[in-house]
């Protein structure tokens, strides 16, 4: 197959998308051309232009053929795959131009050759061709067009080919008038070649820019990947000492090193919770890095109930300390598995439940309600904590946003959590909503509810559908 495609476009979806859009545009324009030809064929007489029977028939047949091949193009266009080496959208562009030029040449010949009012349409085709076809191809097409017109004029001038001038357009038979023919041919040649030259130059510059853009974005993504690996390395280094500290606190608290007073035990418990918070944050960062680096590879069947149980278990220390009661309620016929990334979904629930605990007061309540629906399951996490002030509900999913009442309450928290939670849920083709006050709340403690809906079959991860050329920003 003819190679029309520059090498760098191989994985560049946007290039193909542009070609596909242009092909569709040409197809739509061609329907207009068909209408214009019909108008030309039948309304010329209004301004005293007379077409012969042959001319009428030729225009009719050509118009019908154009309409037919346009319908065909319209039909096959969506089925073409963007692969170089096979018949691809770019080949369709070339085929369209070839068909159009053939039809145009035929119409030009039967409407008077050098006198044809349709000659000007060559220019459009040259400009369009220059924008989408490689230089050597469009120059070949341009030269051929000029030569064909020159040959037709020459043959008609010498009466070697019957002429079909449009009666009523010109006063004299201009095709027999040598100065007119010469001036016309020189003009026409210049018009065509200069159009191609200019359009081609502009198109080339655009392509160059686009190529640079592609390369720059690729470099940025490589740099981002490096950054993520670096973060993973560092965070891992930070994790080791904290994990060791927590392990030590654990054995002290559990009495492995001898009895300790209740006062010490309480402080150790606090230290354990705080190191736990640090570890949770570190794990979040590691998870994000992994998500950015691996671009979602651990996609599988995930049991949501198991995740919830695990997350509740993971937060039991804090819950016990604050005496917060966490309840899990299930509704509907059990269908616990969804498609997704287990560790990311765990991060989602860990984040929401962690927040619920963090913003609950002593003796608070947290209720997890799982509703097993037909196509999706819904997890509602309600608390009777401090709630979210009115007017701030929409903002909580923004990166780095922290609500006013939280800022007053305590200084920890990165504000990264909920935006990440939303991103992950949406990648699973689900959605998340927040509500405050919650049904569990009261006047002093309005509480918050988060509702997460996850379809059983997430389909393809959204991330894969996005154009390849996005910067994968991260932590």
């Amino acid at each position, binding site marked *: 197959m003819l190679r029309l495609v520059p090498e760098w476009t191989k994985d560049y979806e946007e290039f193909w998308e542009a070609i596909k859009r242009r092909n569709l545009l040409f197809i739509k324009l061609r329907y207009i051309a068909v209408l214009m030809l019909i108008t030309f064929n039948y309304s010329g007489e209004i301004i005293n232009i007379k077409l012969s029977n042959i001319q009428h028939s030729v225009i009719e047949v050509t118009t019908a053929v154009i309409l037919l091949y346009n319908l065909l193009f319209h039909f096959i266009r969506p089925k073409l795959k963007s692969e170089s080496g096979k018949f691809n959208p770019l080949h369709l562009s070339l085929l369209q131009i070839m068909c159009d030029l053939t039809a145009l040449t035929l119409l030009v010949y039967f409407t008077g050759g050098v006198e044809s009012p349709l000659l000007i349409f060559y220019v459009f085709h040259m400009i369009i061709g220059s924008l989408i076809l490689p230089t050597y191809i469009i120059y070949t097409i341009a030269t051929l067009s000029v030569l064909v017109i020159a040959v037709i004029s020459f043959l008609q001038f010498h009466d070697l080919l019957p002429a079909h001038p449009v009666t009523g357009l010109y006063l004299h038979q201009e095709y027999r008038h040598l100065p007119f023919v010469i001036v016309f041919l020189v003009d026409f040649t210049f018009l065509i070649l200069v159009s191609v030259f200019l359009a081609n130059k502009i198109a080339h510059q655009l392509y160059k820019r686009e190529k640079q853009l592609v390369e720059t974005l690729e470099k940025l993504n490589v740099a981002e990947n490096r950054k993520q690996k670096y973060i993973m390395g560092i965070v891992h280094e930070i994790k080791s000492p904290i*994990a060791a*500290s927590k*392990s030590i606190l*654990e054995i002290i608290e559990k009495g492995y090193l001898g009895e300790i007073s209740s006062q010490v035990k309480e402080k150790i418990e606090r230290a354990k919770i705080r190191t736990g918070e640090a570890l949770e944050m570190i794990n979040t960062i590691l998870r994000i890095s992994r998500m950015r680096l691996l671009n979602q590879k*651990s996609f599988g069947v995930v049991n949501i109930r198991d995740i919830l149980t695990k997350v509740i278990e993971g937060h039991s220390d804090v819950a016990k300390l604050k005496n917060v009661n966490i309840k899990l309620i299930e509704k509907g016929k059990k269908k616990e598995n969804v498609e997704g990334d287990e*560790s990311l979904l765990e991060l989602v629930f860990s984040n929401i439940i962690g927040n619920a605990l963090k913003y609950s007061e002593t003796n608070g309540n947290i209720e997890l309600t799982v509703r097993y629906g037909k196509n999706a399951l819904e997890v509602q996490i309600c608390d009777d904590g401090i709630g979210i002030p009115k007017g701030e509900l929409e903002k909580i999913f923004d990166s780095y946003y922290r609500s006013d009442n939280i800022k007053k309450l305590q200084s920890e928290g990165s504000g990264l959590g909920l935006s990440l939670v939303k991103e992950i849920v949406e990648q699973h083709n689900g959605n998340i909503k927040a509500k405050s006050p919650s049904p569990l709340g009261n006047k002093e403690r309005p509480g918050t509810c988060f509702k997460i809906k996850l379809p059983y079959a997430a389909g393809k991860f959204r991330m894969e559908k996005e154009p390849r050329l996005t910067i994968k920003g991260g932590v």
Partner: protein
Amino acid sequence: MALIAIIDDDKDIVETTGVVLKSAGYEVAAAFNPGQGYALVKEKSPDLIILDVMMDEPDDGFFLAQKFRKEGIKTPILMYTSISKATGLEFGKSELVPVDDFVEKPISPEELLQKVDKLLKSKRGE
């Protein structure tokens, strides 16, 4: 009583693990790098090996585990990791990672004792 070898370059982890295991009545021997660990296992043939991933060492924990298996040492291996399920980088039980179970740091004494007990029981059962 069963002898358990702990191979980890983090002295605090080795000590903490030691305290927990000794409290349950196990005997403990420790090594602080893969080389020492290899020598320890060869010399004392423990009933169970607790092996850290030790990413910083040139011959890391995975490498050592493979070396043991290649030499026909079938002692159960419990691997300590700090990147595992929590980050989604989960190591499965496979030819490449010839270990019997994982414990994620920070160490929870209950989980550690439960897994040690399970592995020792399965070893006796063979």
